[in-house]
């Protein structure tokens, strides 16, 4: 906790000298301290021919030099600004001594331009240039990043903004791109090795005999019996990470300018390797207007959780002539990224202290059905029904109500409730009664005393393009083992799977992701948008990445309309590297017949 205290003091101190910071040459101007915003003429890359160069470089994070992989000499890479309806050729030079790649996250494009080595193309060899070419058929906020090895952790990412063909329906006076990320001075291969040697290596907030947590001996024993750690919220934490906004550490006080009374559009991109952020701007309501690049009906919140690889556009309307602090706190509350919204450079507002880290409850082990109280039919999940606890509503009277201590009655590794899951050491537990958690605000945010965004709050502005009922449904289990640091879909790492997940072209399928682990997994399907099944019918929010809360489920419908092979994976970089990835193949019907 000492490091936490130090950080806090630093943050408070940072405000004083914030305006006097020198502009670092490796930072693009839109990300410079006191950036005047994107409405001005700024060095971005745009046009039909764009050149990007991937190379090693040094970065300075809060005054300390570190090694990075940047694009065109900056971390994050330059803002790629495009217009809907244009064609683009992106000439990507790899100046590294190893293979590299760029994946255009969230862009709808032909599969062989998607940029995943081994799935969509062979990759970009060292000292060579690859040209991506595809039409721009959408608008919104997206991003790009390496899909090779662990390069993304080292800075190989950047934002994409695509302006709509006509006038932008989201009206604003100015806008700022906010790229959230995590940086470590430890090499990512070393981070991964440490996790393999000791799953809880980076967790400096474990339970101790002297922590004063309001947790009974009985509960502590129960967690111990299950060999699960209720403090296991994030794998790689502020103990090694600096959390960045547009490449700046908290001390830099990156500032976004506004004039009081303006409508300011903030384009948030979570380009982190491993960090889910909780974002708030004390004193300002945040109106979410776009999710993963596509417009949603405005919903005003005080805070929102943004998982790795998600994007949100928000409108804020600061009226007062004062500075506001933008806080992006890591979900495990081991640190935060901080920036300032101010009418003039050199201003700073109070930086709130880190809040207490959350503790997982039984719900995080997929015992969520119990939380619905005795006899509640809503708690009857297929898994629970498989145990014969609640097959019929009438017979279920004795089920939920009569079960006194959930974990005692349910094996935490009962494969009969998950028939598709392979019985491997990768599967530490299987959620016995996972419930849909898309209506919940995310770990540690249920009791913060203000309104927090949930997926259920999102409603699409445009009617969904395909409103057919799904032809079939499938469940995919997100499985893991924190002790061995193994991660997989359905118990099988990508290195072990025999075949991809097949879909027929045009097929509409309902996919339920069941999280059998204690950690949120932001699951990304390449090449497609999917509609979250959150009760909004044909105005379901469309996303490319969905965070499945620990021990819970998330369900989406999607139309397999993009022929080819596509990556499908957890966007936690070390989970993917550990095997939590699959290939989805969409085949023309004549091919598959």
């Amino acid at each position, binding site marked *: 906790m000492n490091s936490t205290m130090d950080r806090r003091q630093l943050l408070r101190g940072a405000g004083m000298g914030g305006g006097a910071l020198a502009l670092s040459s490796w930072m693009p101007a839109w990300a410079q301290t006191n950036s005047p915003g994107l409405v001005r003429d700024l060095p971005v890359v745009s046009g039909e021919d764009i050149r990007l160069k991937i190379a090693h470089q040094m970065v300075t994070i809060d005054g300390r030099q570190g090694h990075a992989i940047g694009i065109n000499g900056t971390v994050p890479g330059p803002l790629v600004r495009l217009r809907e309806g244009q064609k683009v050729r992106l000439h990507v030079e790899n100046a590294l001594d190893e*293979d590299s790649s760029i994946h255009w996250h969230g862009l709808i494009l032909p*599969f062989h331009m998607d940029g995943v080595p*081994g799935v969509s193309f*062979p990759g970009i060899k060292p000292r060579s240039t690859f040209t991506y070419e595809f039409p721009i058929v959408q608008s919104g906020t997206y991003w790009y990043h390496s899909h090779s090895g662990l390069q993304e952790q080292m800075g190989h990412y950047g934002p994409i903004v695509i302006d709509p063909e006509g006038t932008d329906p989201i009206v604003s006076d100015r806008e700022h791109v906010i790229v959230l990320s995590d940086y470590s001075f430890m090499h990512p291969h070393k981070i991964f090795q440490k996790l393999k040697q000791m799953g809880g290596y980076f967790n400096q907030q474990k339970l101790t005999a002297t922590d004063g947590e309001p947790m009974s001996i009985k509960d502590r024993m129960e967690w111990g019996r299950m060999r699960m750690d209720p403090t296991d919220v994030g794998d790689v934490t502020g103990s090694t990470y600096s959390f960045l906004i547009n490449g700046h550490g908290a001390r830099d006080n990156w500032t976004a300018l506004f004039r009081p009374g303006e409508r300011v559009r903030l384009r948030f991109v979570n380009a982190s390797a491993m960090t889910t952020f909780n974002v708030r701007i004390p004193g300002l309501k945040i109106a979410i207007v776009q999710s993963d690049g596509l417009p949603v009906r405005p919903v005003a919140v005080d805070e929102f959780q943004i998982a790795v690889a998600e994007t949100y556009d928000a409108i804020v309307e600061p009226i007062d002539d004062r500075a506001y602090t933008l806080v992006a706190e890591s979900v495990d509350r081991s640190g935060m990224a901080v920036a300032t919204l101010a009418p003039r450079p050199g201003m700073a507002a109070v930086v709130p202290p880190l809040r207490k880290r959350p503790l997982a409850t039984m719900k995080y082990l997929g015992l969520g059905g119990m939380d619905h109280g005795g006899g509640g039919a809503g708690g009857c999940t297929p898994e629970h*029904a498989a145990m014969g606890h609640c097959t019929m509503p009438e017979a279920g009277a004795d089920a939920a109500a009569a079960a006194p201590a959930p974990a005692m009655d349910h094996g935490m590794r009962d494969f009969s409730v998950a028939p598709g899951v392979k019985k491997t050491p*990768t599967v530490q537990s299987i959620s016995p009664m996972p419930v849909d958690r898309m209506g919940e605000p995310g770990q540690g945010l249920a009791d913060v005393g203000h309104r927090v965004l949930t997926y259920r709050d999102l409603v699409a502005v445009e009617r969904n393009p395909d409103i057919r009922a799904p032809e079939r449904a499938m469940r995919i289990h997100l499985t893991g083992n924190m002790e061995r640091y193994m991660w997989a879909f359905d118990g099988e790492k990508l290195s072990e799977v025999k075949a991809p997940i097949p879909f027929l072209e045009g097929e509409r399928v309902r996919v339920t992701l069941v999280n059998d682990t204690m950690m949120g997994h932001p699951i990304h399907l390449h090449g497609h948008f999917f509609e979250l099944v959150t009760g909004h*019918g044909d105005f379901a929010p469309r996303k490319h990445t969905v965070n499945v809360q620990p021990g819970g489920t998330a369900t989406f419908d999607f139309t397999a*309309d993009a022929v080819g092979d596509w990556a499908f994976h957890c966007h936690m970089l070390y989970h993917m590297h550990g095997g939590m990835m699959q290939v989805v193949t969409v085949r023309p019907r004549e091919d598959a017949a």
Partner: protein
Amino acid sequence: MNRLLSIGVALGAFVAAVPALAQAHDGHGQQDAQPAPKPAPAASGCTPEHAAMGHCKMPEPVPAPPAQSSCTPEHAKMGHCTMPEAKPEPPPAATDPDCSPEHAKMGHCTPKTSAVDDTAVGTSLPAGDAPAPRPVAANYADRVWGKNDMQPARDMLRREHGGGTFNQVMLDLAEVKIAKGHEGYKFEGSVWYGGDINRFVFKAEGEGEFGEAMEGAELTALYSRAIDPYFNLQAGIRQDVGAGPDRTHAVIGVEGLAPYWFEVSGYLYLSNKGEVTASFAGEYDQRLTQRLILQPKVEFDLSAQDMPELGIGSGLMGAEFGLRLRYEIAREFAPYVGVVHETKFGRTADYARAGGSDASSTNFVIGVRAWF
């Protein structure tokens, strides 16, 4: 104590369970084979994005097909429903967060909105029960880039997503024993190398008094295989070195993490003289603060026969109880202080007394635990 003994029993059970595990695995593989696809009704998957790319033409709005049964093969297998006979129940209810249409249809729950909603559209509609397509190979990119260029990238993709190898060098104990006139030392270290499932493990340990030959020095080489989320089955060879007659042993054992976070291990040894011995150990890390950790540790050694030349009697020969308090300056480097009680039992104790040694001793130790 009970736990440790039961591990000995579990040892045999684990060995027996391995083939069963493999069988279960095979069975799953077969279940996963999907039936050949049925030609589904032609439906356009042409979204505006794809139409804009010129990949397809947008059809006129497609009316939603009649609702089908939501009985997927998965659910049928769980006994939730019967597949072909199940009569589709079309009333698509307004989605209740706690009771999705599928579950309502299975009779698992009743949506809060009891009124039938005829206007359900899009994601509010229940899913059908069409079969999944047949599995194919993930090689579609070969059509664009050619197999010669794609195959190496595919191999690397698999290696980089779950196929890695790792290693760890661990000096678990390196300590000095503080005993009047009998100052000594003890070390226990190991190295492992390999993937998630299969690993090579090398161990070395020894102890002794300063100025005298090393006792109880052992070198062990093991193949280690993960047999469940927490335990590894290990087998290999142990070579005794140091003072006294040396033995070579075949080793088989299990080590891992037991419920309540106990690190436990149990090994059986068969020496080149045909002797059978066993050792069991357990330890627990009690965090006092994030860096200060109290570690109780116990070890028991057993022998199936008398081995007078080694000073060992049959039965429980010795035990060691340690309590070490370490401070993790870094996770990888932790100095510690502790107290260790060693005791010999039965005929082994008699041999010790006959040789002029104490059958038991309690000493303070100071040392360091380190790994990388």
